[in-house]
Protein backbone atom coordinates (compact mmCIF):
# COMPACT_ATOMS: atom_id res chain seq x y z
CA UNK A 1 0.00 0.00 0.00
CA UNK A 2 3.04 2.21 0.47
CA UNK A 3 3.46 2.94 -3.24
CA UNK A 4 -0.05 4.30 -3.56
CA UNK A 5 0.65 6.76 -0.81
CA UNK A 6 3.96 7.82 -2.27
CA UNK A 7 2.69 8.11 -5.80
CA UNK A 8 0.16 10.76 -4.86
CA UNK A 9 1.81 12.46 -1.94
CA UNK A 10 3.28 15.90 -2.34
CA UNK A 11 6.98 16.29 -1.85
CA UNK A 12 8.65 19.67 -1.76
CA UNK A 13 11.49 20.02 -4.25
CA UNK A 14 13.24 23.02 -5.71
CA UNK A 15 11.92 23.08 -9.22
CA UNK A 16 10.41 25.89 -11.27
CA UNK A 17 7.53 23.59 -12.11
CA UNK A 18 6.39 23.41 -8.52
CA UNK A 19 6.35 27.19 -8.28
CA UNK A 20 3.68 27.39 -10.95
CA UNK A 21 0.20 28.39 -9.94
CA UNK A 22 -1.70 25.20 -9.09
CA UNK A 23 -4.30 26.01 -11.73
CA UNK A 24 -1.61 25.82 -14.38
CA UNK A 25 -0.44 22.48 -13.05
CA UNK A 26 -4.02 21.30 -13.07
CA UNK A 27 -4.45 22.47 -16.66
CA UNK A 28 -1.32 20.62 -17.76
CA UNK A 29 -2.43 17.39 -16.15
CA UNK A 30 -5.90 17.71 -17.62
CA UNK A 31 -4.40 18.32 -21.06
CA UNK A 32 -2.37 15.11 -20.76
CA UNK A 33 -5.47 13.32 -19.50
CA UNK A 34 -7.51 14.38 -22.51
CA UNK A 35 -4.73 13.59 -24.97
CA UNK A 36 -4.44 10.10 -23.60
CA UNK A 37 -8.18 9.61 -23.99
CA UNK A 38 -8.02 10.66 -27.64
CA UNK A 39 -4.96 8.66 -28.59
CA UNK A 40 -6.09 5.40 -30.11
CA UNK A 41 -2.82 4.26 -31.50
CA UNK A 42 0.08 2.77 -29.65
CA UNK A 43 2.59 5.31 -30.98
CA UNK A 44 0.31 8.17 -29.96
CA UNK A 45 -0.31 6.92 -26.43
CA UNK A 46 3.33 6.10 -26.15
CA UNK A 47 4.18 9.66 -27.08
CA UNK A 48 1.83 11.04 -24.44
CA UNK A 49 3.38 8.79 -21.80
CA UNK A 50 6.86 9.92 -22.72
CA UNK A 51 5.75 13.53 -22.59
CA UNK A 52 4.30 13.04 -19.12
CA UNK A 53 7.52 11.48 -17.90
CA UNK A 54 9.52 14.28 -19.50
CA UNK A 55 7.53 16.90 -17.62
CA UNK A 56 7.88 14.86 -14.44
CA UNK A 57 11.63 14.81 -14.97
CA UNK A 58 11.64 18.57 -15.44
CA UNK A 59 9.65 18.85 -12.22
CA UNK A 60 12.30 16.67 -10.51
CA UNK A 61 9.63 14.18 -9.59
CA UNK A 62 10.46 11.53 -12.16
CA UNK A 63 11.23 8.89 -9.57
CA UNK A 64 7.82 9.18 -7.92
CA UNK A 65 5.74 9.41 -11.04
CA UNK A 66 7.82 6.72 -12.68
CA UNK A 67 7.42 4.45 -9.71
CA UNK A 68 3.66 4.95 -9.75
CA UNK A 69 3.66 3.93 -13.37
CA UNK A 70 5.74 0.84 -12.73
CA UNK A 71 3.49 -0.30 -9.91
CA UNK A 72 0.42 0.28 -12.04
CA UNK A 73 1.83 -2.16 -14.59
CA UNK A 74 0.04 -4.95 -12.78
CA UNK A 75 -3.35 -3.35 -13.35
CA UNK A 76 -2.35 -2.37 -16.85
CA UNK A 77 -1.51 -6.00 -17.49
CA UNK A 78 -4.91 -7.06 -16.18
CA UNK A 79 -6.63 -4.57 -18.46
CA UNK A 80 -4.59 -5.88 -21.38
CA UNK A 81 -5.48 -9.46 -20.58
CA UNK A 82 -9.19 -8.76 -20.14
CA UNK A 83 -9.39 -6.88 -23.44
CA UNK A 84 -7.60 -9.64 -25.31
CA UNK A 85 -9.92 -12.16 -23.70
CA UNK A 86 -12.94 -10.26 -24.96
CA UNK A 87 -11.70 -10.45 -28.52
CA UNK A 88 -10.11 -7.07 -29.08
CA UNK A 89 -6.97 -7.18 -31.16
CA UNK A 90 -3.62 -7.27 -29.36
CA UNK A 91 -2.71 -3.75 -30.45
CA UNK A 92 -6.05 -2.40 -29.38
CA UNK A 93 -5.69 -4.00 -25.98
CA UNK A 94 -2.22 -2.55 -25.70
CA UNK A 95 -3.63 0.91 -26.34
CA UNK A 96 -6.08 0.52 -23.49
CA UNK A 97 -3.39 -0.66 -21.15
CA UNK A 98 -1.08 2.19 -22.06
CA UNK A 99 -3.93 4.66 -21.81
CA UNK A 100 -4.54 3.50 -18.26
CA UNK A 101 -0.87 4.08 -17.42
CA UNK A 102 -1.00 7.56 -18.93
CA UNK A 103 -4.10 8.51 -16.96
CA UNK A 104 -2.57 7.33 -13.69
CA UNK A 105 0.70 9.10 -14.41
CA UNK A 106 -0.88 12.41 -15.34
CA UNK A 107 -2.93 12.33 -12.14
CA UNK A 108 0.10 11.40 -10.11
CA UNK A 109 2.05 14.24 -11.72
CA UNK A 110 -0.51 16.73 -10.47
CA UNK A 111 -0.66 15.47 -6.90
CA UNK A 112 3.05 15.00 -6.48
CA UNK A 113 3.79 18.57 -7.54
CA UNK A 114 0.91 20.32 -5.79
CA UNK A 115 1.05 20.95 -2.07
CA UNK A 116 -2.01 20.35 0.14
CA UNK A 117 -2.18 24.12 0.67
CA UNK A 118 -2.47 24.63 -3.07
CA UNK A 119 -5.03 21.84 -3.31
CA UNK A 120 -7.05 23.68 -0.70
CA UNK A 121 -6.93 26.88 -2.75
CA UNK A 122 -7.94 25.12 -5.92
CA UNK A 123 -10.91 23.55 -4.21
CA UNK A 124 -12.01 26.92 -2.86
CA UNK A 125 -11.60 28.39 -6.33
CA UNK A 126 -13.78 25.61 -7.69
CA UNK A 127 -16.39 26.65 -5.14
CA UNK A 128 -16.20 23.41 -3.19
CA UNK A 129 -18.15 23.96 0.08
CA UNK A 130 -15.95 25.26 2.89
CA UNK A 131 -16.66 22.36 5.24
CA UNK A 132 -15.66 19.82 2.59
CA UNK A 133 -12.42 21.67 1.92
CA UNK A 134 -11.65 21.80 5.62
CA UNK A 135 -12.42 18.12 6.05
CA UNK A 136 -9.98 17.37 3.23
CA UNK A 137 -7.28 19.60 4.67
CA UNK A 138 -7.61 18.06 8.11
CA UNK A 139 -7.57 14.56 6.70
CA UNK A 140 -4.35 15.17 4.79
CA UNK A 141 -2.77 16.99 7.73
CA UNK A 142 -3.42 14.07 10.05
CA UNK A 143 -2.50 11.19 7.76
CA UNK A 144 1.06 10.95 9.08
CA UNK A 145 -0.24 11.25 12.65
CA UNK A 146 -2.78 8.48 12.21
CA UNK A 147 -0.13 6.29 10.60
CA UNK A 148 2.11 6.83 13.59
CA UNK A 149 -0.78 5.90 15.88
CA UNK A 150 -1.28 2.72 13.87
CA UNK A 151 2.34 1.71 14.37
CA UNK A 152 2.19 2.40 18.08
CA UNK A 153 -1.00 0.39 18.39
CA UNK A 154 0.56 -2.50 16.51
CA UNK A 155 3.53 -2.38 18.86
CA UNK A 156 1.27 -2.40 21.90
CA UNK A 157 -0.72 -5.38 20.64
CA UNK A 158 2.37 -7.28 19.50
CA UNK A 159 3.62 -6.84 23.04
CA UNK A 160 0.54 -8.77 24.17
CA UNK A 161 1.37 -11.69 21.95
CA UNK A 162 -0.59 -10.71 18.83
CA UNK A 163 1.09 -12.07 15.74
CA UNK A 164 0.22 -10.05 12.70
CA UNK A 165 2.08 -11.97 10.05
CA UNK A 166 0.99 -15.50 10.76
CA UNK A 167 -1.88 -17.59 9.51
CA UNK A 168 -4.14 -17.70 6.51
CA UNK A 169 -6.04 -14.74 5.13
CA UNK A 170 -8.98 -15.19 7.51
CA UNK A 171 -6.77 -15.30 10.56
CA UNK A 172 -4.85 -12.26 9.44
CA UNK A 173 -7.98 -10.24 8.91
CA UNK A 174 -9.27 -11.20 12.34
CA UNK A 175 -5.95 -10.22 13.86
CA UNK A 176 -6.37 -6.72 12.49
CA UNK A 177 -9.35 -6.09 14.77
CA UNK A 178 -7.24 -5.30 17.87
CA UNK A 179 -5.42 -2.75 15.74
CA UNK A 180 -8.35 -1.24 13.92
CA UNK A 181 -10.63 -0.70 16.88
CA UNK A 182 -8.16 1.39 18.92
CA UNK A 183 -7.25 3.25 15.72
CA UNK A 184 -10.85 4.16 15.10
CA UNK A 185 -11.47 5.05 18.74
CA UNK A 186 -8.39 7.27 18.81
CA UNK A 187 -9.47 8.97 15.60
CA UNK A 188 -12.87 9.68 17.06
CA UNK A 189 -11.31 11.12 20.20
CA UNK A 190 -9.00 13.18 18.04
CA UNK A 191 -11.91 14.53 16.00
CA UNK A 192 -13.60 15.61 19.19
CA UNK A 193 -10.52 17.50 20.32
CA UNK A 194 -10.13 19.10 16.94
CA UNK A 195 -13.76 20.18 16.99
CA UNK A 196 -13.24 21.89 20.34
CA UNK A 197 -10.14 23.65 19.08
CA UNK A 198 -11.93 24.74 15.92
CA UNK A 199 -14.91 26.11 17.77
CA UNK A 200 -12.64 27.94 20.17
CA UNK A 201 -11.04 29.71 17.24
CA UNK A 202 -14.34 30.86 15.78
CA UNK A 203 -14.65 28.35 12.95
CA UNK A 204 -17.88 28.97 11.12
CA UNK A 205 -18.27 32.50 12.41
CA UNK A 206 -18.81 33.88 8.92
CA UNK A 207 -19.77 32.14 5.67
CA UNK A 208 -16.74 33.35 3.70
CA UNK A 209 -13.50 33.35 5.66
CA UNK A 210 -10.54 35.28 4.31
CA UNK A 211 -7.19 33.70 3.59
CA UNK A 212 -3.57 34.46 4.47
CA UNK A 213 -2.36 33.22 1.09
CA UNK A 214 -3.98 33.61 -2.27
CA UNK A 215 -3.48 32.41 -5.80
CA UNK A 216 -2.24 34.92 -8.30
CA UNK A 217 -1.32 34.19 -11.87
CA UNK A 218 2.03 35.67 -12.74
CA UNK A 219 3.70 36.22 -16.09
CA UNK A 220 5.37 32.84 -16.14
CA UNK A 221 2.09 31.17 -15.21
CA UNK A 222 0.43 32.74 -18.22
CA UNK A 223 3.39 31.86 -20.42
CA UNK A 224 3.42 28.24 -19.43
CA UNK A 225 -0.35 28.04 -19.65
CA UNK A 226 -0.41 29.42 -23.17
CA UNK A 227 2.52 27.30 -24.30
CA UNK A 228 1.03 24.14 -22.92
CA UNK A 229 -2.29 24.90 -24.53
CA UNK A 230 -0.53 25.48 -27.83
CA UNK A 231 1.27 22.19 -27.39
CA UNK A 232 -2.04 20.55 -26.65
CA UNK A 233 -3.66 21.93 -29.78
CA UNK A 234 -0.67 21.05 -31.95
CA UNK A 235 -0.64 17.53 -30.57
CA UNK A 236 -4.30 17.12 -31.44
CA UNK A 237 -3.69 18.49 -34.92
CA UNK A 238 -0.74 16.20 -35.55
CA UNK A 239 -2.79 13.31 -34.30
CA UNK A 240 -5.62 14.13 -36.62
CA UNK A 241 -3.55 14.55 -39.75
CA UNK A 242 -1.15 11.64 -39.34
CA UNK A 243 -1.61 8.14 -40.55
CA UNK A 244 -0.40 5.97 -37.70
CA UNK A 245 0.77 2.48 -38.62
CA UNK A 246 -0.17 1.25 -35.19
Amino acid at each position, binding site marked *: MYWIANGFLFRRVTSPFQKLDPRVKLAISIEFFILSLFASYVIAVGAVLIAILAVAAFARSLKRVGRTMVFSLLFAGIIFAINVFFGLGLLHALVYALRFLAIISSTSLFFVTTSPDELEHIMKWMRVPRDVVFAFVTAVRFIPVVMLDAFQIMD*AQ*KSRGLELDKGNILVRVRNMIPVLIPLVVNSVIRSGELAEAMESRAYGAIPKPTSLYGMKLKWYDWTVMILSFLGFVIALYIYHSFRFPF
Partner: protein
Amino acid sequence: MTLIEFKDVTFVHQTGVKALDGVTLAIDKGEMVGIVGENGAGKTTLVRHVNGLLKPLTGSVMVDGENTRAVSTAALARKVGIAFQNPDHQLFSDSVEKEITFALNNFGFEQPLIEQRVSWALEFFGLEEYRKSSPLILSGGEKKRLTLASILAWDPGVVILDEPTVGQDAIQKAKLAEITKNLKSTGKTVIIVSHDVEFLWSLQPRLVVMRQGRVAGDGPCAEVMLDREMLKTARVSQPQLVRLEERLHSRPERPFLDLSDAAAWITKEAQ
Protein backbone atom coordinates in the same frame (compact mmCIF):
# COMPACT_ATOMS: atom_id res chain seq x y z
CA MET B 1 21.93 -13.38 37.85
CA THR B 2 21.93 -11.26 34.70
CA LEU B 3 18.55 -11.36 33.03
CA ILE B 4 18.79 -8.61 30.44
CA GLU B 5 21.99 -7.62 28.71
CA PHE B 6 22.72 -4.96 26.13
CA LYS B 7 26.13 -5.34 24.46
CA ASP B 8 27.25 -2.26 22.56
CA VAL B 9 23.87 -1.82 20.91
CA THR B 10 23.22 0.72 18.20
CA PHE B 11 19.90 1.38 16.55
CA VAL B 12 18.82 3.71 13.78
CA HIS B 13 15.17 4.53 13.11
CA GLN B 14 13.67 4.43 9.63
CA THR B 15 13.75 8.21 9.67
CA GLY B 16 17.53 8.06 9.87
CA VAL B 17 17.73 9.17 13.48
CA LYS B 18 20.31 7.27 15.49
CA ALA B 19 18.42 6.46 18.66
CA LEU B 20 20.97 4.21 20.38
CA ASP B 21 24.65 4.86 19.99
CA GLY B 22 26.58 2.11 21.74
CA VAL B 23 24.60 1.05 24.79
CA THR B 24 26.03 -1.49 27.17
CA LEU B 25 23.86 -2.33 30.14
CA ALA B 26 23.15 -5.35 32.33
CA ILE B 27 20.05 -5.82 34.48
CA ASP B 28 19.80 -8.54 37.07
CA LYS B 29 16.78 -10.60 37.92
CA GLY B 30 14.61 -8.89 40.51
CA GLU B 31 16.15 -5.43 40.08
CA MET B 32 14.09 -2.27 39.88
CA VAL B 33 15.60 0.11 37.34
CA GLY B 34 14.49 3.65 36.54
CA ILE B 35 15.40 5.11 33.15
CA VAL B 36 15.50 8.88 32.76
CA GLY B 37 16.51 11.26 30.02
CA GLU B 38 14.95 13.91 27.84
CA ASN B 39 12.64 13.13 24.93
CA GLY B 40 14.71 11.66 22.15
CA ALA B 41 17.50 10.42 24.40
CA GLY B 42 16.61 6.84 23.57
CA LYS B 43 14.67 5.61 26.63
CA THR B 44 11.65 4.27 24.78
CA THR B 45 13.81 2.83 21.99
CA LEU B 46 15.87 1.07 24.62
CA VAL B 47 12.97 -0.71 26.29
CA ARG B 48 11.45 -1.70 22.98
CA HIS B 49 14.55 -3.80 22.46
CA VAL B 50 13.87 -5.79 25.59
CA ASN B 51 10.70 -7.43 24.27
CA GLY B 52 11.99 -7.67 20.74
CA LEU B 53 9.79 -5.04 19.12
CA LEU B 54 13.03 -3.60 17.87
CA LYS B 55 16.15 -5.51 16.99
CA PRO B 56 19.57 -3.91 17.30
CA LEU B 57 21.45 -2.76 14.24
CA THR B 58 24.79 -3.72 15.72
CA GLY B 59 25.55 -5.35 19.02
CA SER B 60 23.20 -7.72 20.76
CA VAL B 61 20.44 -7.86 23.31
CA MET B 62 20.17 -10.98 25.47
CA VAL B 63 17.04 -11.69 27.46
CA ASP B 64 16.99 -14.68 29.77
CA GLY B 65 19.90 -16.23 27.91
CA GLU B 66 18.44 -15.82 24.44
CA ASN B 67 19.50 -13.41 21.73
CA THR B 68 16.49 -11.28 20.80
CA ARG B 69 17.39 -11.61 17.15
CA ALA B 70 16.82 -15.34 17.32
CA VAL B 71 13.46 -15.23 19.04
CA SER B 72 10.04 -13.95 17.94
CA THR B 73 8.49 -10.90 19.58
CA ALA B 74 5.57 -13.00 20.77
CA ALA B 75 7.91 -15.41 22.54
CA LEU B 76 9.78 -12.57 24.21
CA ALA B 77 6.53 -10.81 25.12
CA ARG B 78 5.59 -13.87 27.15
CA LYS B 79 8.50 -13.04 29.44
CA VAL B 80 8.59 -9.26 29.12
CA GLY B 81 5.46 -7.15 29.55
CA ILE B 82 5.44 -3.50 28.51
CA ALA B 83 2.74 -1.13 29.74
CA PHE B 84 2.73 1.67 27.20
CA GLN B 85 1.98 5.26 27.98
CA ASN B 86 -1.36 5.53 26.22
CA PRO B 87 -3.97 2.95 27.28
CA ASP B 88 -6.15 4.03 24.36
CA HIS B 89 -3.60 2.40 22.08
CA GLN B 90 -4.51 -0.99 23.47
CA LEU B 91 -8.07 -1.30 24.70
CA PHE B 92 -10.48 -2.79 22.21
CA SER B 93 -12.55 -5.58 23.75
CA ASP B 94 -16.23 -5.71 24.63
CA SER B 95 -15.49 -6.16 28.28
CA VAL B 96 -12.71 -5.68 30.80
CA GLU B 97 -12.71 -9.43 31.31
CA LYS B 98 -12.14 -10.12 27.61
CA GLU B 99 -9.46 -7.47 27.49
CA ILE B 100 -7.43 -9.35 30.08
CA THR B 101 -8.13 -12.67 28.37
CA PHE B 102 -6.76 -11.42 25.03
CA ALA B 103 -3.10 -11.85 25.86
CA LEU B 104 -3.72 -15.09 27.74
CA ASN B 105 -5.28 -16.55 24.60
CA ASN B 106 -2.41 -15.31 22.48
CA PHE B 107 0.07 -17.02 24.78
CA GLY B 108 -1.81 -20.30 24.73
CA PHE B 109 -3.09 -20.41 28.29
CA GLU B 110 -5.68 -23.15 28.99
CA GLN B 111 -9.21 -22.35 30.06
CA PRO B 112 -9.32 -23.05 33.81
CA LEU B 113 -6.03 -21.21 34.23
CA ILE B 114 -7.37 -18.27 32.22
CA GLU B 115 -10.32 -17.86 34.54
CA GLN B 116 -8.04 -18.03 37.54
CA ARG B 117 -5.62 -15.44 36.20
CA VAL B 118 -8.41 -13.07 35.14
CA SER B 119 -10.04 -13.22 38.56
CA TRP B 120 -6.71 -12.65 40.26
CA ALA B 121 -5.85 -9.67 38.07
CA LEU B 122 -9.26 -8.05 38.52
CA GLU B 123 -9.03 -8.40 42.27
CA PHE B 124 -5.44 -7.28 42.60
CA PHE B 125 -6.04 -4.12 40.64
CA GLY B 126 -9.42 -3.34 42.14
CA LEU B 127 -11.33 -3.75 38.89
CA GLU B 128 -13.70 -6.62 39.81
CA GLU B 129 -16.74 -4.32 39.73
CA TYR B 130 -15.97 -3.54 36.08
CA ARG B 131 -15.57 -7.15 34.99
CA LYS B 132 -18.33 -7.05 32.40
CA SER B 133 -18.09 -3.35 31.55
CA SER B 134 -16.64 -1.93 28.39
CA PRO B 135 -13.05 -0.78 28.87
CA LEU B 136 -13.84 2.42 27.01
CA ILE B 137 -15.99 3.83 29.78
CA LEU B 138 -13.34 3.59 32.45
CA SER B 139 -11.62 6.69 33.78
CA GLY B 140 -8.00 7.49 32.87
CA GLY B 141 -6.60 6.03 36.04
CA GLU B 142 -8.73 2.90 35.76
CA LYS B 143 -7.60 2.37 32.16
CA LYS B 144 -3.99 2.49 33.30
CA ARG B 145 -4.72 -0.11 35.95
CA LEU B 146 -6.45 -2.24 33.34
CA THR B 147 -3.41 -2.25 31.08
CA LEU B 148 -1.29 -3.30 34.04
CA ALA B 149 -3.82 -5.95 34.97
CA SER B 150 -3.81 -7.39 31.45
CA ILE B 151 -0.05 -7.66 31.58
CA LEU B 152 0.30 -9.08 35.07
CA ALA B 153 -2.34 -11.68 34.20
CA TRP B 154 0.15 -13.53 32.06
CA ASP B 155 2.76 -13.20 34.80
CA PRO B 156 5.83 -12.05 32.88
CA GLY B 157 9.09 -12.07 34.80
CA VAL B 158 9.93 -8.59 33.57
CA VAL B 159 7.52 -5.66 33.73
CA ILE B 160 8.34 -2.42 31.92
CA LEU B 161 6.36 0.74 32.66
CA ASP B 162 6.61 3.41 29.98
CA GLU B 163 5.82 6.81 31.53
CA PRO B 164 3.28 5.47 34.02
CA THR B 165 2.53 8.79 35.71
CA VAL B 166 1.78 11.02 32.73
CA GLY B 167 -1.51 12.85 33.22
CA GLN B 168 -2.19 11.15 36.57
CA ASP B 169 -3.27 13.02 39.68
CA ALA B 170 -1.66 12.61 43.11
CA ILE B 171 -3.95 9.84 44.29
CA GLN B 172 -3.45 7.79 41.14
CA LYS B 173 0.30 8.26 41.38
CA ALA B 174 0.36 7.04 44.95
CA LYS B 175 -1.49 3.89 43.87
CA LEU B 176 0.99 3.34 41.06
CA ALA B 177 3.93 3.69 43.42
CA GLU B 178 2.39 1.08 45.67
CA ILE B 179 1.74 -1.32 42.80
CA THR B 180 5.30 -0.86 41.56
CA LYS B 181 6.75 -1.64 44.98
CA ASN B 182 4.52 -4.72 45.17
CA LEU B 183 5.78 -5.94 41.83
CA LYS B 184 9.36 -5.74 43.02
CA SER B 185 8.58 -7.52 46.24
CA THR B 186 7.09 -10.44 44.29
CA GLY B 187 10.46 -10.94 42.64
CA LYS B 188 9.70 -9.38 39.28
CA THR B 189 12.28 -7.37 37.41
CA VAL B 190 10.78 -3.90 37.02
CA ILE B 191 11.93 -1.22 34.58
CA ILE B 192 10.37 2.23 34.77
CA VAL B 193 10.85 4.80 32.05
CA SER B 194 9.83 8.13 33.52
CA HIS B 195 10.25 11.87 33.51
CA ASP B 196 8.80 12.06 36.98
CA VAL B 197 11.87 12.33 39.19
CA GLU B 198 9.79 12.71 42.35
CA PHE B 199 8.01 9.45 41.60
CA LEU B 200 11.33 7.68 41.03
CA TRP B 201 12.86 9.23 44.12
CA SER B 202 10.09 7.71 46.22
CA LEU B 203 10.93 4.28 44.79
CA GLN B 204 14.75 4.55 45.00
CA PRO B 205 15.49 2.16 42.12
CA ARG B 206 18.78 1.78 40.32
CA LEU B 207 18.90 4.75 37.99
CA VAL B 208 20.11 4.81 34.39
CA VAL B 209 20.45 8.20 32.71
CA MET B 210 20.21 8.25 28.93
CA ARG B 211 21.67 11.07 26.89
CA GLN B 212 21.76 11.14 23.09
CA GLY B 213 21.53 7.39 22.74
CA ARG B 214 24.12 6.58 25.36
CA VAL B 215 24.21 5.73 29.03
CA ALA B 216 25.42 8.86 30.82
CA GLY B 217 24.92 7.66 34.36
CA ASP B 218 24.18 4.36 36.08
CA GLY B 219 23.97 3.61 39.77
CA PRO B 220 21.81 3.78 42.87
CA CYS B 221 19.19 6.51 42.63
CA ALA B 222 20.50 8.36 45.66
CA GLU B 223 23.97 8.62 44.12
CA VAL B 224 23.12 9.36 40.49
CA MET B 225 20.72 12.13 41.41
CA LEU B 226 23.54 13.97 43.17
CA ASP B 227 25.61 14.36 40.01
CA ARG B 228 24.29 17.78 39.09
CA GLU B 229 26.65 18.41 36.17
CA MET B 230 25.87 15.16 34.43
CA LEU B 231 22.13 15.54 34.97
CA LYS B 232 22.23 19.03 33.54
CA THR B 233 23.84 17.84 30.32
CA ALA B 234 21.21 15.13 30.11
CA ARG B 235 18.48 17.71 30.77
CA VAL B 236 17.14 15.78 33.72
CA SER B 237 15.94 17.69 36.77
CA GLN B 238 16.82 16.75 40.31
CA PRO B 239 14.14 15.87 42.88
CA GLN B 240 13.22 18.71 45.22
CA LEU B 241 14.68 17.04 48.29
CA VAL B 242 18.03 16.65 46.52
CA ARG B 243 18.05 20.27 45.43
CA LEU B 244 17.31 21.22 49.01
CA GLU B 245 20.10 19.11 50.41
CA GLU B 246 22.64 20.47 47.94
CA ARG B 247 21.90 24.04 48.88
CA LEU B 248 22.20 23.59 52.61
CA HIS B 249 25.40 24.89 54.12
CA SER B 250 25.93 22.08 56.53
CA ARG B 251 25.29 18.86 54.68
CA PRO B 252 23.62 15.77 56.11
CA GLU B 253 25.54 12.48 55.83
CA ARG B 254 23.15 11.08 53.32
CA PRO B 255 20.56 12.66 51.04
CA PHE B 256 17.01 13.04 52.29
CA LEU B 257 15.11 10.00 51.11
CA ASP B 258 11.76 11.32 52.23
CA LEU B 259 10.03 14.12 54.10
CA SER B 260 10.52 12.75 57.59
CA ASP B 261 14.28 12.47 56.94
CA ALA B 262 14.41 16.09 55.90
CA ALA B 263 12.12 17.38 58.64
CA ALA B 264 13.99 15.52 61.36
CA TRP B 265 17.40 16.73 60.20
CA ILE B 266 16.32 20.35 59.78
CA THR B 267 14.59 20.45 63.14
CA LYS B 268 17.76 19.08 64.75
CA GLU B 269 19.99 21.58 62.93
CA ALA B 270 17.79 24.45 64.02
CA GLN B 271 18.62 23.74 67.62
